């Protein structure tokens, strides 16, 4: 019984806290009678059920006069995968998710993006053309919008959607909605959500949702959620309802998830709703955190109608509350500048639909993302915190073993948590490394100027399209409505976008985010 063992090994004066009972639960009355301990460090590294977690959380929050805010309440169920954060600098997290997937053999780099698919296919691409692209990320992103209508087929197939779509070895993440298609609102109810597939609206109940997940067998899936886009200034009542419904759906999903043999190696992601109302967002965070989820999805930030600053502040507030040791995904954010802003605010994973949207417009991504390191006058490296957040029992305990309260307070991570998100990084006023010549995010290859332009889409791009074809050829394919245009553009755009994310990871690791941001924002303003 893991909790009991921990109990014995922990150096913390557990005698101040009631030990667990034989069956692993805590007696409520005993707990309330503890003296105020020196340091709240409550570890639940072991399987917890949702009732226990929320009960304990309630206990903690209800104890008054706490000397230190219990920021280390790690209500971790045994999520198979582990998040190893190598560093957090200026709010940007850098690390890896390891032991991902059914075999526990895969890893996901953070920050990163997902591989966008429609009905399980990267748009326009077959396995062979996809293989031409370097740096294709895990996981593969499936959406119920584009696969729900094939539920029955998958039930009969029995071997899971990964094999069905020709990606048997890939990590699969299943979300509700397709980020590249509009999602009309007004259809969700207390018991159902609607997705919009090829054949129209599909209404999904909780049991149908879970039946689908069991037929599909994804590695991760978002909990069912009421994430309808809410207009700004939507009534508080409606926003509150979406938070409540989502929590209800989450509990329902978890219950079935925990009883499911088929999903025992899958992770469920909690969904943070709350529209544009801070209190609701925080409520959604705190409640969702009590549940044993494998990660968190920031939902409801897709629409363009929330102005940037409030949106980003909200994201920062949300991530500021979320636990360190679990991944944070966001839906609907794909533009380069927005991605950087979200990375700076503690977001880990993004949907990879932006290259597709540009492809459909006949556009090629051409923005520069290679920031150059200026050898002189380099900004001082912030003190990087070591791998504190490896959620391995032994290491964590021994780390806490040696920390005093002062160290806890002085801990960079800890103080970061106190702040509301990353805040404003000063954008360096150093000159752009490219010496003045900048390129906008995309070029429109249907434009006449490319008709006789025999250069590749982007100089220095090593993708199959740029190595083999010219702008003139793409112009020709687009103006003659040839299918190959979509194939080649998709190859280039994906390649480019994945390269951008590698650049983000490098920038975060090397503390060069401000340079990367400057480079991107400059190009945005060029348009």
């Amino acid at each position, binding site marked *: 019984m893991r909790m009991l063992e921990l109990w014995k090994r922990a150096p913390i004066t557990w005698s101040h806290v009631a030990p667990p009972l034989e069956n692993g639960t805590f007696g409520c009355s005993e707990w309330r009678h503890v003296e105020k301990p020196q340091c709240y460090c409550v570890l639940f590294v072991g399987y917890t059920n949702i009732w226990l977690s929320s009960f304990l959380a309630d206990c903690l929050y209800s104890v008054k006069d706490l000397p230190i805010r219990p920021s280390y309440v790690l209500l971790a169920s045994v999520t198979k995968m582990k998040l190893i954060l190598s560093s957090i600098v200026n709010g940007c997290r850098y690390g890896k998710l390891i032991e991902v997937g059914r075999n526990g053999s895969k890893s996901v780099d953070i920050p990163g993006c997902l591989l966008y698919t429609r009905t399980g*296919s990267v*748009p*326009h691409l077959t396995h062979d053309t996809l293989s031409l692209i370097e740096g294709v990320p895990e996981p593969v992103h499936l959406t119920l919008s584009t696969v729900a209508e094939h539920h029955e*087929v998958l039930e009969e197939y029995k071997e899971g959607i990964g094999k*069905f779509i020709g990606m048997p070895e890939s990590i699969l993440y299943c979300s509700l909605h397709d980020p590249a298609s509009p999602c009309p609102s007004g259809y969700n109810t207390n018991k159902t959500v609607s997705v919009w597939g090829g054949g129209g609206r599909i209404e999904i109940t909780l049991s149908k949702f879970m039946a689908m997940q069991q037929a599909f067998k994804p590695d991760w899936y978002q909990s069912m959620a009421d994430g309808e886009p809410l207009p700004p200034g939507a009534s508080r009542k409606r926003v509150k309802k979406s938070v409540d419904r989502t929590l209800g759906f989450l509990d329902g999903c978890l219950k079935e998830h925990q009883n499911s043999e088929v999903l025992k190696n899958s992770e469920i992601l909690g969904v943070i709703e709350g529209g544009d109302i801070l209190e609701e967002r925080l409520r959604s965070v705190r409640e969702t955190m009590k549940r044993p989820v494998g990660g968190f999805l920031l939902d409801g930030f897709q629409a363009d109608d929330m102005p940037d600053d409030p949106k980003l502040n909200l994201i920062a507030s949300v991530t500021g509350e979320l636990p360190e040791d679990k991944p944070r995904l966001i839906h609907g954010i794909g533009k380069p500048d927005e991605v950087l802003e979200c990375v700076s605010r503690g977001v880990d994973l993004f949907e990879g639909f932006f290259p597709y949207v540009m492809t459909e417009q006949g556009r090629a991504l051409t923005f520069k993302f290679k920031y150059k390191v200026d050898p002189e006058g380099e900004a001082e490296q912030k003190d990087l915190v070591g791998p504190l957040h490896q959620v391995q029992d032994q290491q964590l305990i021994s780390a806490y073993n040696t920390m005093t309260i002062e160290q806890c307070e002085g801990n960079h991570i800890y103080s970061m948590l106190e702040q509301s998100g990353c805040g404003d990084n000063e954008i360096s006023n150093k000159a752009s490394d490219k010496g003045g010549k900048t390129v906008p995010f995309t070029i429109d290859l249907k434009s006449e100027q490319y008709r006789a332009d*025999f250069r590749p889409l982007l100089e220095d791009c090593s993708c199959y399209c740029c190595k083999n074809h010219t702008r*003139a050829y793409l112009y020709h394919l687009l103006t003659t409505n040839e*299918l*190959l245009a979509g194939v080649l553009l998709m190859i280039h755009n994906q390649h480019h976008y994945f390269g951008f994310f590698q650049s983000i990871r490098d920038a975060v690791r090397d503390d060069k985010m401000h340079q990367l941001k400057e480079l991107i924002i400059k190009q945005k303003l060029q348009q």
Partner: protein
Amino acid sequence: MSPAPGPGAPSASASASAPLRVVSRRECPVSRARLLQLELPHGELQTPVFMPVGTQGTLKGIAVRQLEALGCSILLGNTYHLGARPGPELISKANGLHGFMNWKRALLTDSGGFQMVSLVELAEVTEQGVRFSSPYDGKEILLTPEKSIEIQNALGSDIMMQLDDVVSSTVSGPRVEEAMYRSIRWLDRCIAANKNPEQQNLFAIIQGGLDAELRKKCLTEMIKRDVSGFAIGGLSGGEEKDNFWRMVTLSTEYLPREKPRYLMGVGYATDLVVCVALGCDMFDCVFPTRTARFGSALVPWGSLQLKNRQYAKDFKPIDEDCDCPTCKRYTRAYLHALFRNDTAALHHITIHNIAYQLNLMCSIRESIRQGQFPVFIQQFMKRMYGSKEQYPCWAVEALSTVNVQLE
């Protein structure tokens, strides 16, 4: 490739400097089928061969890398379309069609003549050439033999086709004769207009409709000209199969054995097998790739209409014996599901259909090489039709004229 032990010795084509060399020729001892090894400016080619059609400088939805991987050795491009968009000047600047589309192997371009038949309401034929009203911008184009060759010279294809006066095979009467004689005169104009005879081959196109006498006259005249190969044109336009095969047989009887024979517009599996037996070497058709985009997958026993509901839960690949990239990874059910939602479904099926065609030709070549072609034909027909009662009559008859008796 070793020389043929049977009838026909390996021989060079017309002149030593011609850009097409027949390295070797082997003939089937029973039928008129042949196995040729050809050398073209952009690579070697074995026939019988099927040429996928890449009309506008692309095979729809398929990258050249994929075509190379499938073993495709020659593609067809369309002078009419490319002449309009992007136009010969631009393609010239791009180092020809090879450079423009980045295809390193052989290319054959047709003359633009076939569009006369398919777009006939827009065309007016005179001795000078064909007057079109361009469907793209309404401009008037006069396509003369000289102009067609000029465009094809700019495209830089390994094999160019003469501009011929094409009439539909369903037309009869004096128009057919007029077109036949005009095609001969246009052939001479095309030969004269070729500015690149060292690098680009010109093929003649035998016309004459379904009239044996006209065909013979055309053959007699055209084989006197110094061209690298001959096409059999004016067929495959909806005529009765009984008439079709007779014209093919007639042509192969007269055409010189040491030059390749290209039967235009033929691509159905049965037609390919029979016409190889009748003595044809090269074939092109939009059918396999076009039908793929409608969800139809070709198989040795016919075709599967993957859009049909019956495939929704069919978890077999298109063909369990096919090792194309599609069949190795995807099921019929997945292709059915994907079909409405993403273009990738079209590409999967296109890849399979091209693989099917190329594998068919490869099997044909192998069986000729081993002197087993009649056996192959038997097996093919059995697989496709099941039993002799189902075999198409025209095919049985045609094959019997080249000593292949089907059981």
